[in-house]
């Protein structure tokens, strides 16, 4: 702006000089002759001066404006600089914010992504290690009252009542996904005081999809009872059915090897499974008819004629999609030489049906034991059938809702079981009786899972059991059982010398059992 102002002023000065010089030259040329023309020139000069004055004033105004504009421009420039700085800071902040937002989005996406539970569990497993050590099992305390109303084979009888407790921890050790160790202890306070027993101790090797090798001491895989129904919290009743109680038809356990597996043969739910096994074989307390079967550990030392072989096949014919429940049909056999080439042979069939609140099961078993010295074959047969129904869906009218809540936890049960055998060994009955203070026999003593009734030792025992279970949780139950003993006449009692005495009249007893059981 200063340059412009300088040029304007310079131009005006030069114009004035040129004009003055021209007037002087013109005056010399014209002289004083033309006064009018001079006046005109003078008038024009005055106008020019006035115009120059106005121009000067205008320039001054313009200069003032220019100065004002220059000052305003400086302020604007300063403001612009500030804005620019602020903008740069804002851009930097925006970039940082965008970066943070991107990180947040990434994290959010990871958080929002559903983590499959198996992945979580696998991670948890890895955290804990590959070896799994698990303790499960059951514990129960019960009270048994048995009304012993009559004598049996001249044994003293007296009604019994007593408390018992039993604890059966199961230890599972899983070093890898192809091998498992299982051990079950049975510890409790029974008729002979505190005792402990090793029920199961075996290795399970998962060879492939369809073959599992079991080696050790295990429940007899004959039928369904010993393997699947004997655990306290699994058994709907407190006692065992007669063929699996104190007059067992087949040994309750075995020491040996099993090969087993299952497969689907049709649609989902249509399965087939097999179990074949061999072991120490059966052993009996005495070489007389009706002698009790003993455990496999005693067989290890007493049995000297080959081993046992057994097989069980089961089929499940109903597809799940039919929604007709699940039906199991099974057949079993167990055979072995029990003494000096004398065979013990047994077979059985079983069924199990479950649908909604209804469950029913049953088994039939027969055994034949070749006897030495020309004694007729010791033939035994036993059976049971039971049913239970959960009252989950039953709503009693005209009662408060709280009462119905209790009713929904109830499961009424009924079971009929029996054993037929020609004879019962007297020594086995004596061994099952208790001896009280002063050496006085106080009668047939109940024990954990056995009501102690003399009628249980009849050659032709029969029992009707009524049960009412109150389920507090799926594995916590208060069980109540009322046993009605209805033995049939017939059969004999056999002493250790082979002397036989007709069984005669067997008292009809009643027993009540109540048990609180926790499966853990």
């Amino acid at each position, binding site marked *: 702006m200063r340059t412009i102002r300088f040029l304007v002023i310079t131009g005006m000065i030069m114009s004035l000089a040129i004009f003055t010089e021209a007037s002087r030259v013109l005056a010399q040329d014209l002289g004083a002759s033309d006064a009018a023309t001079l006046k005109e020139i003078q008038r024009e000069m005055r106008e020019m001066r006035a115009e120059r004055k106005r121009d000067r004033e205008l320039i001054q105004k313009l200069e003032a404006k220019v100065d004002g504009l220059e000052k305003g421009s400086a302020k604007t420039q300063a403001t612009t600089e500030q804005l620019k700085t602020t903008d740069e800071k804002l851009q930097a902040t925006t970039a940082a914010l965008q970066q943070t937002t991107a990180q947040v989005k990434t994290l959010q996406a990871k958080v929002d992504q559903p983590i499959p539970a198996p992945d979580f569990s696998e991670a*948890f497993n890895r955290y804990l290690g590959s070896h799994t050590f698990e303790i499960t099992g059951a514990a129960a305390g019960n009270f048994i009252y048995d009304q012993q109303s009559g004598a049996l084979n001249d044994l003293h009888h007296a009604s019994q009542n007593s408390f018992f407790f039993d604890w059966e921890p199961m230890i599972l050790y899983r070093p890898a996904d192809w091998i*498992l160790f299982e051990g079950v202890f049975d510890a409790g306070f029974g008729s002979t005081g505190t005792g402990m027993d090793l029920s199961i101790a075996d290795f399970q090797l*998962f*060879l492939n999809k369809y073959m599992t090798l079991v080696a050790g001491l295990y429940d007899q895989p004959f039928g369904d009872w010993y393997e699947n129904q004997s655990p306290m*919290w*699994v058994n709907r009743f407190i006692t065992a059915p007669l063929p699996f109680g104190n007059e067992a038809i087949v040994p309750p356990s075995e020491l040996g090897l099993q090969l087993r597996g*299952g497969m689907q043969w049709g649609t989902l739910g249509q399965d087939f499974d097999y179990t074949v096994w061999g072991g120490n074989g059966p052993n009996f307390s005495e070489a007389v008819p009706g002698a009790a079967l003993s455990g496999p550990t005693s067989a290890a030392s007493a049995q000297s004629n080959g081993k046992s072989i057994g097989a069980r096949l089961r089929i499940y014919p109903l597809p*799940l999609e039919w929604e007709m429940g699940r039906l199991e049909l099974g057949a079993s056999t167990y055979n072995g030489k029990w003494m000096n080439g004398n065979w013990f042979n047994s077979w059985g069939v079983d069924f199990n049906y479950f649908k909604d609140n209804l469950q029913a099961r049953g088994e039939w078993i027969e055994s034949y034991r070749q006897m030495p010295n020309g004694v007729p074959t010791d033939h035994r047969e036993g059976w049971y059938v039971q049913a239970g129904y959960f009252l989950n869906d039953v709503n009693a009218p005209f009662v408060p809702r709280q009462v119905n809540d209790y009713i929904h936890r109830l499961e009424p049960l009924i079971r009929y079981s029996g054993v037929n055998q020609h004879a019962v060994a007297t020594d086995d009955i004596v061994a099952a009786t208790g001896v009280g203070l002063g050496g006085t026999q106080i009668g047939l003593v109940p024990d954990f899972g056995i009501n102690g009734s003399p009628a249980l030792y009849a050659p032709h025992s029969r029992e009707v059991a009524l049960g009412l279970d109150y389920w507090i949780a799926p*594995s916590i139950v208060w069980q109540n059982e009322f046993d009605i003993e209805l033995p049939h006449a017939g059969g004999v009692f056999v002493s250790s010398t082979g002397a036989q005495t007709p069984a005669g009249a067997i008292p009809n007893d009643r027993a009540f059992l109540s048990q609180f059981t926790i*499966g853990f």
Partner: protein
Amino acid sequence: MKKQVAAFLLMTATLGSVGGLARADQQMTPAEHRRLFLKGAELWPVYCNQCHNARPPSEKAPVEWNAIIMHMRTLGNIPPDDAQALLEYLKSGH
């Protein structure tokens, strides 16, 4: 005869062990997890209740179900795919 049986069992056990170890290394896809979970949810109330009351998944930690399902697979002769489905359901439902 006894030697032949023993040799057969030994050979089967060896092969089975290798197979078992190989199975341990397998990784399932999410789709396979989902398929097994749904199948297990269908089997659980039927297979378990057949012998005893079905225990809810929350009763045991996932790592515990590993051992328990192995035990039940043996005891119930459960087909291996069904046992795997039950395991996925019980572990996922925790």
